[in-house]
């Protein structure tokens, strides 16, 4: 559930289900996104094949005309469904695109953190000049991220609000720390987006065929609530 909230409190909702399959660790990924709300995007589905170092392949299904449309690999800096998160914020930026520097170890809200600076190798590839991340030292999850522009001014702030450790249904492994609620705030416009997961599961064993045209047209009921 994404809540898009403007400076004066006006809200828009985007309810969606995202299925992600990591084809290769740190490499190719497949995403299937199904919108259930609001009604003007209901039943719209997106399919994305993400490749490291190469443009994504993307398809969109428009229910009104029953058309599966391929879309131009868009600017990764563009907003994801009109929210304060970009496509890249949602799917993850390639590690090779930035250079990193550990600034210091610190404490944030009582938690020990690493303070890490990321600078895009190609300034045109990102909508920020510098990003400072405060990463929880124990579980290695970013708790806060500050995005600065070319003048050094912070224009966007990301915060992790709720974290939970989720164990897969199989019971195997220690589980994955998952950010269940997060917020991205645009300091220039005062607009913010809050993303809450009502449900998240790992190692579900998503079959490869979900990430095909068939399911763009008819979302798999088994995985979509």
């Amino acid at each position: 559930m994404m809540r898009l909230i403007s400076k004066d409190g006006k809200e828009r909702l985007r309810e969606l289900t995202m299925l992600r399959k990591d084809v290769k660790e740190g490499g190719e990924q497949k995403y299937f996104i199904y919108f259930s709300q609001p009604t003007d995007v209901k039943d719209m589905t997106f399919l994305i094949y993400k490749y490291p170092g190469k443009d994504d392949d993307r398809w969109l299904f428009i229910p009104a005309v029953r058309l599966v449309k391929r879309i131009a690999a868009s600017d990764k800096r563009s907003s994801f469904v009109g929210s304060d998160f970009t496509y890249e914020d949602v799917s993850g930026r390639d590690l090779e695109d930035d250079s990193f520097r550990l600034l210091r170890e610190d404490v944030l809200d009582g938690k020990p953190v690493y303070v890490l600076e990321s600078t895009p190798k190609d300034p045109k590839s990102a909508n920020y000049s510098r990003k400072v991340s405060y990463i929880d030292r124990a579980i290695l999850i970013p708790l806060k991220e500050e995005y600065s522009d070319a003048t050094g001014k912070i224009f966007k702030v990301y915060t992790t609000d709720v974290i939970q450790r989720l164990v897969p249904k199989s019971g195997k492994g220690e589980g994955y720390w998952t950010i269940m609620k997060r917020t991205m705030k645009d300091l220039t416009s005062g607009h913010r987006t809050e993303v809450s997961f009502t449900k998240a599961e790992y190692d579900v064993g998503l079959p490869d065929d979900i990430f095909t045209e068939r399911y763009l047209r008819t979302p798999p009921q088994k995985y979509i609530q």
Partner: protein
Amino acid sequence: MRKFLILLLFNPIFISTPSLATNIDIFDYGLTSTRLGDGNAIVLENRLRMEQQASLTGAFTLQYKLDGVQDMAGGDAFAEVREAYLTYSGKNWEIHGGRKIVTWGVADLLFINDVFPKNYESFFAGRPMEYLKKPSDGIFFSYFGKGWSADFFSTTFEKDVLPSSNRFRRLPNPFTGIPQREKIEPEKQELAFRIYGTLKNFDVSVYFSAGYFNQPSFQMDDPQNPTKLTLLFPRLNTYGLSLQGPARGGLLTIEAGYYDSTKDRSGNNSIIPNSEFRLLAGCQKELATDFTAGIQYYAQWLQDYASYKSTLPPGFPPQDEIRHIFTLRLMRLLNYQTLRLSFFGFYSPSDGDSFHIPEVSYAISDTLSITLGVNLFHGSSFTPFGALNSNDSIYFYFRKSL
């Protein structure tokens, strides 16, 4: 103007409804289209839409889209079933039966392998884009293989809806004055087949259809002294292919097709259209954040042109052997993607006609959106777009979820 206000007052936007059963969607369209030349309404209607996708027992699903239409311009009220079909889903196949909207092909507002029926009256009047597609009745079978999939459809004949003189003005009509009309519609099923897959990031499809022309041919009982006009729909087979994939940071599109007019392969029959080749090449790219542009080049090459010209009835201006069309689409999203500015233009350098559609759309809230646009036609009345040059219009519609 008064009619429009009455429409606004009586439509359900002002009635609050309790939330209904899950997964039934109800929304309301208020549609208007006003001719710029004389201020008359081309379209003035309210459509109450009900849609549902219901899982039934086993692997059956039922889907439907119903419109309850109040047509203020025509003075009529009726129900329109946009879709109503039952689906059975197998492990790697599916079969649907009933009324369904089907779309394939990769071109933007130009049709080569999408041989399915269309409502051009809705398109030229400014109804929302979904009304350009006309549903088909039949059986729709799909097979999903590893890497390659196929569709096979068998449908009853449906003709295109063309602009009619009860809504559009000064439409060229070479057959006025012929008192009797007869329409012969085909009774056999139309078949359409597609096989598709992805090869090296490119979506590839191969198409085939065996059916009928969706627009009529006209036969006069006696060309010298006609008293009866018969509308018939000759046989048409189409063969085609399409490719779509990434190129230089954008999307490249290629589609081609051959329209085989099987009853007039020599081109000597003046009534039946000649065969033709259709070719399209296009590309689309995001030029800046939330700003996309797309261009297409399309050509329609009439075969057996010499036979066509020699058998053309007197008084009928000949069409060119090749009709060239360029299109441009621009789209800009603003304000957290709530405001959409778009433009689509068709221009034919060979015929000198054009059709331009600038449009603005704004999502006021999650349940209410409004759209305003203009349809501008230019060209001599002997050209396809120019024939509508007295029908430039401004259209406005809202969509409210209930």
